[in-house]
Every structure is written in C-alpha cells, then in structure tokens.
C-alpha cells in the first residue's frame, strides 16, 4: 500500500464522505455497518472502498457535534453504537448538499458530456 495513493483518496473523500454519512442518517439512527452498507449501495461502491475508512469520518463528525452516538441494540439483538443526526448536523447537511450540488453542476458544465479519454 502506498502512502501517496491513500492520500489521494483521502483528499477526494474529505467532505464527500461526511455529507454521505449525514445524508444516510437523515432516515434515523444507524450504526457504522449500516451506514457503510447504505453508502456503498447508494454510490455503487465508488465512494467507500473499505468500511474502516468510515470511522475517522464518524469520529470527526461526532467531535464537531454534527452527530451524536449511543450504544444500543439492533433488530437482531446485537449491540451496536448508533449514530443520530443532531440539529447542527441537519443544518450542516442542508448547507453542504446545496454546495455539492452546485459544485457538481458547475463541474459537469465545465467538463461537458462524458467522453472516454485515451
């Protein structure tokens, strides 16, 4: 595993992953594995290669008080740490999704229709 490659992905994922997590939590409290699954499904495995990469982002969001966490029991009676969106998290998500949408639209305009590059 090379440092440089890892760094590249981190740069790409900063912010992106945060928004995805917050977005996932909008439907209610969820534990780490649930969030990972949801993100993988909704992004066709593009944005989260390893589940483990989710946890630094969760920690960061928790430190920023955008989400809160509590140990609980899952449907199949297993213990899990559940993450809940806070009020600040909800506001942050609204702001960030808007920003990402604008950014994505702008990038799409600049790059034009998708072309295969040689």
């Amino acid at each position, binding site marked *: 595993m090379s*440092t440089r490659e890892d760094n590249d992905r981190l740069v790409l994922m900063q912010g992106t992953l945060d928004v995805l997590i917050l977005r996932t939590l909008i439907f209610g409290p969820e534990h780490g594995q649930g969030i990972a699954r949801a993100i993988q499904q909704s992004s066709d495995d593009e944005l989260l290669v390893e589940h483990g990469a989710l946890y630094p982002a969760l920690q960061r969001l928790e430190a920023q008080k955008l989400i809160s966490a509590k140990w609980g029991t899952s449907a199949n009676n297993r213990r899990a740490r559940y993450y809940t969106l806070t009020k600040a998290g909800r506001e942050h998500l609204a702001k960030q999704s808007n920003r990402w949408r604008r950014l994505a639209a702008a990038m799409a305009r600049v790059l034009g229709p998708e072309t295969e590059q040689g």
Partner: protein
Amino acid sequence: MANWRRRSDDDFSEEVHAHLEHETARLIEDGMAPDAARAAARKAFGNVARAQERFHESTRWVWFEQFAQDLRYAARGMAKSPSFVATAVLTLGVALGLLMVAFTVFNAYVLRPFAVHDPSRLYRLGWHSPDAASRIFTWNQYDELQARTDLFEAVVAHDMRFINSESAGGRSLSASYVSANYFPALRPRLLMGRGLGPGDAGQPVAVLSQQAWTRLLDADPGALGRTIDLSGSPVTIVGVLRAEFVGVDDFPRDIWLPADRTTNPEGLEVLMRLRSDVTPERVEAILTPYVAQKAPPNIAPKDIRAMLVPNATANPLSTELLAALSPIFAAFALVLVTACFNLSNVMLARAVARQREIAVRLSLGASRSRIVRQLLTEGLLIAALGGIAAVTLTTFLMPVGTALFFRTLPPSMAALLRVVPMPVDYRVLGFAFAGVAAATVAFALAPALQASRPSLTDALHGQRTGTGSASRMRSVLVVAQVAVSMLLVVTALVLARNFATIGATDLGYRTAGVYSVNVRGGHNELIPAAAAALSTDARVAEVAVTSGNPLFVTHTLAAAPADADQAPVPVRYSFVSPEYFTVLQIPVLQGRAFQAAETSTAARVALVSEATARAFWPGANPIGQTVRIERPLTSRMDEIEGYSRVTVVGTVRDVVTGLMVEGADRGHIYFPATATHRHAAALLLRPQATGDFRPDMTFATLRRAGLDTTIFEVFPMAEMREAQMYPLRAGAFVGGLLGAVALALSVTGLYGVLSYMLTQRTREIGIRIALGATAHAVINLVVRQCLRLAGVGALAGLVLAAAAMKGLSSVITLEAVSLLDVTPFIAAMAVVFSAVALAAYQPARRATRVDPAETLRAEA
C-alpha cells in the same frame, strides 16, 4: 480539533467488533458460509489494526506519547554526536546566560518587589513644581500625614545617610533613621533578634543587614547585644535582617536606627501604604493643596503638585525606563540572536546530512508535521540544556560580575556603593524559560521546515536534493551573523574610543594629590570650622573653599557684557577662595587673583575664563570690564542675589568642570568667597608633598575640632574623576565582551559553512587541481566565497551600526561623546575581517591538499 472524546480505545474496538459481526450476519443472511462471511466482512472493513491506530492517534494523549517518543529519539541522536551537543549547548548557554545576567540586574532593580508585607500598595510621596521637586517632609507634616487614616493604612518615614564607623574600619555605613512604625508596618523578616519599635526612640540600638552583620561582625551568631561604633558612639545590635531585605529604595542600607526629632531635624522621606479604597490619583489630588501650603516660601503654591510614586520595587517600571534601557537590552539580545543564527546553521547542516533518513521516514508514512515536530523536539532538547547551562552560568556570573564591579570601581566609591540582592528568582527563571522557547523557534524551526521537504525519490536514491536552498539559507544565516557582530563590534569600539578620548581629557587643572572634603546633608554651616581645623593641620599644605567640587559644577547663570547690547548666554559659576586656583593649579592669565579683602567682603568682582573673556570682549582687554548677570539658570532665584553687576579683575585658563562627557566649559565666572560665605559648600585640600597623607586622617583632625565626623566625606579627586568615567569604562567593557562573543560565534559559523562548501566541492576542486589549478587558485576560490559572505554581512552591519549610532546620537547629546566618528567603524572593519580571515585560513589550506587522484577515483 476541539472536544476530544474521552472514549477509550476499548470502546472503539468493541464498535469495530460489532461492525464485523453485523456484516458477517448480513452476509450469512445473503447465503454465505459463516467462515467465508467472516473473512469477507473483514476484507470489506479493510485493515482493522490501522483503523484502531488512527482512532488512537486522534485522541489527545497521542501528542504526549509522540512527544516522549521524539524526546527519546532526539536524546539517542544527540548521544551519538556529543561534540555537536556540547558546542550547541555552550553556544546557547553563553548567549542566553549573558542576557539573563542583564535581566537579573533589571529584575532586582525594577521588577522584584521589596521583601516587605504587601508591597503592592506602597507609594512614596513627593511634590514637584516646574523648576523644583522634593521628597523631604518635616516631622510635623509626617504627623499630619499619619493622621490621615482615611487615606493610608500606614505612613512610614526613613532617610538615607552615610555614617562613618570605626567598626567598619573607619569607612562609611549606609544608614537609615526610621520612624517607630517602620518595622511593624513593613514587617521585613529577621534572621535574629527584633526590629525597631516605638520604645526604641532615642535609644542607642540598631538593626543590621545580613551583609553588614557578615562584614562587621563576621556573621557572629551571638551578635545580639554586641555593640558597634557609629561615629564615636556605641550602638547595641538588637536584630539582624535576612539577606533579602536591604531597605525600601534602590540604595541598600547596612544599618537601621530609630529616628526622632533630634536626629532628623530637617525631615524625612515619607512612604505610605494606601488604603484599598483609594486610588493614588485621588490621594495626589487630595494632598496637592496640603503640600502646596507647606512648600518653601520661594515657590508659588499654585505650581505645586503632590506626587505618589509606586514604591513596590526599587524603581517603578515605566515606558521611559524601558526606552532608556532598550539599547542595552538590544545589545545583549543581539548576542542571543547571533547564537541562534549559529545554531540554526549547524542544525541545518545536520538536517541536510540526515536527509536520507528523513526521506525514508516520510516514505514510510510519517507526515511532514510529524517530522517537523520531531526535529523541533531536538531543538527544544538542546535549548532546554542550553537554558540549564544559562541558569548555571548566571548564578556563577552574578557574584563574579558584582565582585568585578567593586574591584574596578575607584576604592573610595567602592566603599560607599552597595548593590541590592540580585537573586535568580522565579522571574529570572521564567525569563530563561521564555528565552529557551524563543530560541527553539528561532534556531530549530527553519531547519526543520527546510529539511522535511526533500523530493522523496531523489533522496532515496542517495542524491542530496534541496541542498541548493539549504546552502543558500546557510549563507544568509552567516551573512546575518557577520552583520550583527559588526554592529556589536562597532558599538564596543565607539564606547571604547569615547572612553579613551574622554578619559584622556586635559581638565586644565590638577586632580592628582587633591582631596575633596564634602559635607553631607547640606550642613554648610560646618564648613568654616572644618576649614579652620584643616588649615592648622601640619600635614595639609593648602585648603581651598568652593561652592562645589569642580568635577560636579552644575550651576549656570545667564550673563552678558554690561556695556554691550548682547543677549545673555549661559555661563557656569563658582564661588571660590583664592587658594582654589593654587590648589588646582589653574593659572591666572591676565590681571590678578582675588585679594583677601575681596573674599572677606564678598566684593562684586570676578575672575572669568578665557573663553568668557573672548566671547564677551573680543579683542579688547577684559580687565576692568563689567559683567551683567541676568538670572541663575539652574538654581533658585535668591542664589546669586546682589550679584547683578561684577567687575572683572582677571582671567584664568579654560577648564573642564562638571561632567566630562559634557565637554569643556563654554564659559566660567568665579566669584570670591571665604569659608563663612553662604555659598561655601566644599573644601579642596592639598597635603604636604612629603607627608604620607591618608584621607581618613582628616577625620581625626575634624573630631579634635569637635566636629561631627559622620557628615563629612573625603575623596581623592583622582578617584572622583575615575568614578565619572566609570559608566563609559563599564560600557566599553561590556560592549567589548558582547562584541567578542558575537564575533567568535560568527567565526565558527563562517568556518562551518566554508568547510561544508569544501566537502561538497571536493570533487570539483580535485578536478581543478588535476587540470593544473595552482594552490593559489584554490585558495582564491575559498577566499572569494568567504569574502562574498563576510563582505555582504560586514556591509549590512556597517549600515546597521551607522543607523543605530545616528539614532542614538539624536538622543545622547553630550558634547564630548561622539558616536559617528569614523575611526571605530574602520577599526571594526579591520577586526571583523581579521576574524573572517582566521575562519577561512584552515578550510583554504585543507582545499589545497585535496588529492586529485583520490577524488577522481572516488567518483568512479
């Protein structure tokens, strides 16, 4: 990041574990075999250990952990190069130590509160008007102030005087007569016995300082009850103070005595502790009408303001004081700056040498900030050791410096002067701590940033990259060092030059073998009896009366020739007896000296200096001319009342009176006086050429005449002259010391850079020699490099020095002091370039010995 959670590593592990279980369960649900599901869950998660590591690193304890790791690493690295560490620690220790010595003195005189109870609300009272000021109050005023319990918690009175003591070998003790509440209110801590109290008034009892107890009584543990001599009468010691208390102003006392209205008829200084519910400004406003109504009759009450000066420390901290001291501190700080440049240079060289190691660590995933932090830790460790060295050096230098100060002072001054205790207390240690922190950033940050950004691949391939900018940085550091050294060397030489030229000033009168007898505390009424007694002493050849010692004349008046319409100019004046001119050997050039009849009647005649005669009557005979005296400029109006017109009876040679740094007198007028004249304030005596005269012999003579010898002091004029020069002498010495240290540091810095350059260019030099370059050409190469660095630095230093001197010369307007003289600048250049040559010599010789065959082989 804010809000680090207090979440444990275990809690996180549990979460990861739960995650894996959930995932496994999910996969089994999807139809996977349990083992395969477990493996797939792990695979999907990625590196579990790494996730846990990252969680761990995000908690705050990691910083300490890594710091400890860095410290261990730095210590190991330093243990491998002890000579580097020793040099670095010594460099920093000396430079920081010197600055700390300066700070320790500053701390003792400005920052350190007196060792008394609650010093923060202590103030001393004074008053000032536009042209007068005083801090002396009468006993009645003291009583009235003490009654103002609405303003003050306590009002304490004390004074400062020298008393001759046989117990001190005939020398003076600095004494304080203190009010009865001095000890109860200030509560200084005692080593033994008791302080003075209300019951002691009028009793022959005293409290000694720890220093005086050691000096006078050999630190006798049974000192209580012993008596010592004070000007012929015994006093009993009732207490000895601890070393930290030496009084409540900036002149330490040896002995404290109970004051009463008979010992201090003329009054005392007054010190008060303000109540917590009043402000000093309010007290000043309240006391202003009070002091105005009690002021001397010749000062208009409306001009008088009461003034409370903070008295928590020996000198209150003020911006004026800081401004005055800043050039001195700047000089000391510049040495530390040079040391930091020097260290930075060495650290940079080390970092470049370790580039491969750093590159490996970077490629293994260490972040740049982590590498910078690690290199900074090394710097911090060196700085901390340097700080310890500096503190050690300071504790060693303080007593040495104090001893040196007293040894180099003229003996008669050394016997009088005292210094306050100058401990290395927590403020000094805090200052050292700040110095260490600042030094670390100053010398370690730039190399760390520089070293942590190599191109990985190049460095891993063993090529030294980034050396271009590193060596550029090293050159800049050397240039800066040379510049700062140049500035300090110029400063030192300017001081030395002024000391030499002013010290060699021909005063125009004799000081050697002349003694000055002064009366303390303005007891001029004792002058006639003293003059009479000394005149009859067989060992004394001649006694002159004067209104002031010629080395300290400050009285100036405005005068003009009477018959011309000329604006009055400032002229110094003295009242003297005829012997003044013979004792001091000032020749009368025209006309005649004073006659006995003129002195006894205080006739309105005068002798004028040549310069005055030339200015007032150019080309004409001054004898018989009249001088019109407008007003005194430096003293009270009544000082020369009745002297509005005086007739010139002669001219005398120009002399240098007053402070020598102020230069020769522009003019001087002498009026006749005898010992009984109201202006007579001091005596000058010339002993017989044959006898072996000692100043203290005069005390015996004075005592025989029934005079209180406590208030007389006798100084050799030669020593008074020396004492006047002492500040310049000390300045030249300290400046020279700082300059020498800075220069030594720059030389080692330059030497390091040249050696480094040579090792880098060994191959090139080898090829040059193989191609037929002579030793001369190789030396040229080194010298050119050296001159380029030193030349730029020296030039920058000269410009800095010229700017600094120009700035100072606008503040220091002393006639005899010249700051912009060219000689010290040229001399400094010679000194700096000699030092540079010294630095270049060894590397240049080494370069000529490069073996071309060897270097060419090494390349292959």
